[in-house]
């Protein structure tokens, strides 16, 4: 706990570093933030290894209620993940920050953003949680506007983000206050103690309210609409933090309230969570394949990954409620492992996308390409993280997906029909999302980074600053490490899972480097597999050196006998995703526009052809726009009540006063 408190203090100090002159501001502040993250990480890992719960309390910062902090393994896991991503993001910012990102507002916001992210999991009372939550929301909103304040899309994104975050926070507040009102105190310990005595309907209402807020933060469809707008517009280190750390806090909230405070609750809660996960995974993966904006693709992929985590959490909760604690533990460990793996690979992907954007000036995949030679390090690191997302062995995503599948599979021995069907739907979602994610990331890597540059901007790309590359490397390391020796972190993840759901303390995985399920029949040893793959590569290479011709030459690529092939003849990202777009056209409803300009002389000759293809967010178009138009309509109608007459306004207040008196009487 002391290390965490020191870390938080250092974070606050980093905010104060904004007082320094311009060229010192960013490096000093970022280094202090990095130091804060290191301290928090060490404190969290110590907590995960020991398993003791420690608390801290101060009445100083918040009037009336004071700050209550409690560090248990579940909180420690999320703090460790956040600290790791924060450390890399801070290092990245040193090289990335320029112009508007060096302003005092931006520096203070960044430091406070990271500090609040570290504070939320440790919060142990309603007031502390909401204080940290609101600080997180406000600072991230300011950071969202930091780089492109004048751009219309950035303002739009900020509006959506602000509105939805506030609505989510209001829902969370309502839910938690409902629980606090029935528990005689807003302290989490009090709520935990009184929860079994609260009636099920009240608990369900509270859970649903809290779920709305936290699921929106985690990017669950249909409350995800802010994510694909906000992530592309934010500066890259902030996007990495939002995707790697902030959305995981939504998951943390669901586990904390549903699993820990309300002690598991009712079956239908977790089936709803699973259903949200299924829809999010499929929706996110599908829209990722249809996006040609690199960061929007990554944002949708975050929705997809969080959907998979929600499937795991839902399955764990459901299996625990129906009395299968061992299978539940496995699903929960899978979900939390995925959270950790996701933080590192998604963070690395966003940082690399930011590097590409900084080097070429655009994030449109249709305008990128050919970055492999000028930006070799960025390309390799993006490739490592992309292979982790696609869940190929021996990377971390594969271990996570294997655990998740095993968790769902071994729950099939359950007798409740609803759970079994939910698990089957979960498997289907996992499979289709995995396939679609592979398409999306082959597109991002192959079209964005490989091949030939499609525009002048891409052709003039240069490798980015060393601090940015270092940060990407730091985040790419766990993609490999967690994949090769997942057994290293599994005991800590298992402790966190048990703290979240009060499950039996036996780890579902036998201690060791690989993943060997205890109690179920299943195991993989990714390290040995990696050795086998390397041995295979080596054997093939040596055989070819002996047996085959070693000569190599360069020649022009095959173009059906054409003489000159230009870079514009390559496939674009829109073209790559087009077959899938056609298969799922009823879901995506793309906007296609084809304009043919004929030559002046005759209609039979074409001068130019313009084709545009736009895939809007389906939920936004079909759910939010009608609601917003309805609200706008209501606004215009209500305006008739305000005609400027002073008498009418006085009459309003008089009538309101009379009504209140009548009600009180």
């Amino acid at each position, binding site marked *: 706990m002391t290390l965490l408190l020191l870390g938080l203090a250092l974070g606050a100090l980093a905010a104060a570093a904004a007082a320094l002159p311009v060229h010192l501001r960013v490096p000093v502040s970022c280094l202090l933030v990095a130091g804060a993250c290191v301290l928090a990480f060490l404190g969290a890992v110590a907590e995960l290894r020991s398993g003791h719960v420690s608390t801290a309390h101060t009445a100083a910062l918040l009037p009336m209620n004071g700050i209550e902090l409690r560090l248990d393994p579940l909180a420690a896991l999320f703090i460790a993940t956040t600290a790791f991503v924060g450390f890399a993001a801070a290092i990245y910012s040193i090289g990335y920050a320029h112009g508007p990102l060096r302003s005092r507002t931006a520096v203070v916001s960044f430091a406070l953003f990271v500090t609040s992210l570290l504070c939320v999991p440790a919060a142990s009372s309603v007031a502390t949680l909401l204080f940290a939550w609101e600080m997180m929301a406000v600072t991230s909103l300011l950071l969202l506007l930091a780089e492109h304040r004048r751009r219309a899309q950035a303002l739009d994104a900020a509006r959506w983000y602000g509105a939805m975050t506030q609505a989510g926070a209001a829902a969370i507040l309502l839910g938690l206050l409902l629980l606090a009102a029935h528990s005689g105190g807003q302290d989490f310990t009090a709520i935990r103690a009184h929860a079994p005595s609260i009636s099920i309907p009240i608990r369900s209402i509270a859970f649903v309210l809290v779920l709305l807020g936290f699921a929106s933060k985690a990017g669950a469809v249909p409350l995800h609409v802010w994510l694909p707008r906000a992530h592309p517009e934010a500066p890259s280190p902030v996007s990495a933090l939002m995707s790697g750390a902030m959305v995981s806090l939504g998951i943390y909230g669901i586990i904390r309230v549903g699993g820990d405070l309300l002690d598991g609750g009712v079956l239908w809660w977790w089936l709803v969570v699973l259903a949200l996960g299924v829809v999010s995974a499929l929706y996110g993966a599908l829209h990722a394949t249809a996006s040609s904006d690199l960061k929007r693709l990554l944002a949708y992929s975050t929705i997809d990954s969080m959907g998979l985590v929600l499937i795991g959490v839902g399955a764990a909760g459901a299996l625990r409620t129906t009395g299968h604690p061992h299978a539940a533990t496995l699903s929960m460990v899978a979900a939390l492992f995925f959270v950790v793996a996701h933080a590192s690979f998604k963070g690395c992907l966003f940082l690399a996308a930011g590097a590409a954007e900084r080097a070429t000036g655009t994030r449109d995949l249709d305008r990128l390409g050919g970055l492999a030679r000028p930006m070799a390090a960025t390309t390799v690191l993006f490739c490592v993280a992309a292979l982790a997302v696609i869940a190929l062995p021996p990377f971390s995503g594969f271990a996570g997906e294997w655990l998740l599948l095993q968790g769902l599979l071994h729950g099939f021995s359950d007798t409740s029909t609803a759970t079994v069907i939910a698990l089957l739907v979960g498997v289907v979602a996992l499979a289709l999302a995995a396939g679609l994610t592979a398409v999306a990331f082959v597109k991002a890597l192959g079209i964005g980074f*490989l091949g030939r540059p499609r525009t002048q901007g891409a052709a003039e790309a240069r490798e980015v600053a060393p601090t940015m590359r270092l940060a990407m490397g730091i985040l790419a390391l766990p993609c490999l490490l967690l994949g090769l020796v997942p057994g290293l972190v599994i005991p800590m993840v298992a402790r966190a899972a048990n703290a979240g759901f009060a499950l039996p303390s036996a780890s579902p995985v036998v201690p060791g480097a690989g993943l060997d399920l205890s109690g179920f029949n299943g195991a993989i*040893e990714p390290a040995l597999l990696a050795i086998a*793959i390397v041995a295979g590569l080596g054997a093939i290479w040596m055989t*070819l050196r002996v047996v085959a011709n070693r000569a190599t030459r360069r020649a022009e*690529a095959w173009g059906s006998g054409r003489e000159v092939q230009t870079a514009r*003849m*390559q496939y674009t990202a829109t073209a790559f995703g087009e077959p899938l777009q056609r298969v799922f056209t009823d879901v995506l409803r793309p906007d296609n526009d084809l304009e043919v300009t004929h030559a002046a002389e005759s209609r039979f000759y074409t001068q130019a052809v313009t084709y545009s293809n736009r895939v809007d967010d389906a939920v936004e178009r079909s759910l939010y726009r009608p609601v917003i138009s309805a609200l706008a309509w209501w606004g215009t109608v209500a305006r008739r009540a305000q005609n400027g007459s002073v008498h009418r306004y006085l009459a309003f207040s008089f009538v309101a006063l009379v009504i209140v008196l009548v009600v009180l009487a």
Partner: protein
Amino acid sequence: MTATVSTVHVWSGIAISVVQVIALVLGAPLALGLMAKVRARVEGRVGAPIRQPLLDLRKLLTKERVHAEHASAALPIVPFVVAASVVVAVAISPLISTSPALSESADLLVVVSLLLAGSVALAIGGLDTGTAFGGMGASRAMTIGALAEPALLVAVVALAIQAGSTNLPAIVAGTLAHPAWAASPERLLALGALSIVVLAETGRLPVDNPSTHLELTMIHEAMVLEYAGPDLALVTVGQAMRLGLLVALIANLFFPWGVATSFSPAAIAIGLVALGLKVTVIVVVIALVEVRTAKLRLFRVPELLAGGFVLAVLAVVTGLVTR
């Protein structure tokens, strides 16, 4: 499930894996040659000799490598990744015996992911060439792969629910111990679903025509246009071994009789012969099916894969119902 293996077991396992790899490196091109021969005979031609693919590979090894001039360093690595991923998958799968090296990690999901690694590598190589054909092949191949995933994984789950594990040797041993499983409706439905998936994943008719010369009709071929010499040899043998592995896995998961369960040389020999027989039968059946079908339009392939998906879901539900 912890396995305490002695050094003898480890070395025997490695020996079995080596035998499996060599058997497939030589046998898979022969299987392709057999398929071409069967098709030729049925169509009234004489056809090339069965060992023609092996002769082609030998010829390719003597030619020089040609790299596309605008490609990056990724392109030369791709053939090695394709070949290595399928070699490792072959080495750990229970093809001749239930205990090759690393058989505790011989999980269905591991094999599926290793094959996916090969496809992803080929697609990335196709995009790296900087040509329109590479992109086209990559786009189509990844789309078909993505749509085949649900059918594949749900069929895997159907098998795993019955056997209690996704570990391949466990499923094989389970079927050997309970012969009645082989005729159960869920197995037959899973077999149907997996057959469709195998046709899609290995690029055979009716999903893709492996002998087409028209670039606009290519799916897999378009991605490998830019490889020459030993690179093309690696990619070709990788693709052949992929087909061989999937066919051998279907043979051993659904009709495991003949697979060696001990380390004795006699059992290994029987396992090898049994594998050869089963693969020959299945390959001849595929060739006969190919003669009678025409290639589907690209946008009719999702219909085929959706049908496979329904069969797989049916397999799981039937399994739950008849438990």
